């Protein structure tokens, strides 16, 4: 676990530690089972073709959960995610598998973010962030916002 982040450590403009992710067809199947989203758009090539799309697409909800992990990793155990939102701007396509456990070479995604506001509300030390998911070409395919409560060093 990384060191705990404190409210005093950050300023407007501070970058959130990026989180790298690799979507694979295997991960999409795991996500389908774990989340209960069995839309064949995410695993069935013939269905995807009949729906007029080129290839299976990454679940929006999985990308959302990646961005939630970006925040929970960054704020650490003493931080609390208070608000979160995201919208989907473009589709993402998973890597295929090379072996039973290894993906083919290809795209890596990065969850990123920046602090946009730091403020006090009642007793809570809050931080607003702008966040997004970048595909292998550096294009933002999912964007959002988050508000977190951070602990303070001084008592």
């Amino acid at each position, binding site marked *: *676990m990384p060191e705990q982040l404190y409210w005093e450590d950050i300023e407007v403009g501070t970058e959130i530690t990026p989180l790298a*992710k690799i979507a694979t067809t295997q*991960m999409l199947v*795991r*996500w389908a*089972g*774990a*989340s*209960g*989203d*069995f*839309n064949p*758009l*995410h695993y069935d090539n013939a269905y995807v073709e009949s*729906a*007029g*799309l*080129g290839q299976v*697409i990454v*679940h*929006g*909800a*999985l990308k*959302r*959960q*990646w961005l*939630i*992990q970006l925040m*929970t*990793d960054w704020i650490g*155990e*003493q931080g*609390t*995610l*208070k*608000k*979160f*939102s*995201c*919208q*989907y*701007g*473009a*589709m993402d396509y998973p890597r295929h598998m090379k072996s039973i456990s290894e993906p083919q070479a290809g795209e890596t995604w990065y969850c990123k973010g920046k602090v946009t506001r730091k403020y006090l509300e009642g007793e809570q030390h809050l931080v607003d962030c702008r966040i997004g998911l970048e595909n292998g070409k550096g294009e933002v*395919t*999912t964007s959002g916002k988050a508000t977190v409560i951070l602990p303070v060093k001084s008592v």
Partner: protein
Amino acid sequence: MIPEEIKKLIGASGPVQYYEVEKGAIRRFAEAVDDANPLYQDAAYARKSRYGSIIAPPGFFGWPQKQARGSPLAVDIPPELESAFEQAGYPLSLVLDGGMEYEFFLPVRAGDILAAVTTVRNLRERSSETGSIIVSFLDTVYHNQTGALVAKQQLMFVRRSLDQPPKETDNA
């Protein structure tokens, strides 16, 4: 124009859905994301943390039990709205997740029983060259077994009328 039988459901709520938050389901959910946070799977670690027990990642509300109730999608949608969409020619096969908003009030813990109620806050028609797209704004409120408010959720749920394949500019 949004068909009247759909439009009249603005403000309507579905029945209370109960979701039992299982430890194994939390672990599989975290594994599917590749999130190794010990708070989600290591009972001894979680006990010593400020939470005192295993918690779920924010955004996990007892899935995948929605699917077990008959829908192939993990979406909180009032049954009345679902059947109105089907009857008006907006089949479940042509849906896309447009976006999500959460406000978290309490952690979700392994063993919790969550009660979820979903309300149709608004419906909006989006112009498209191929026909009708309706965006549903669905608000879900989760309470736990002690009656405490756990989270509020706002889902943007995009539906197309028949013969409109999803487009590259959308997402799911």
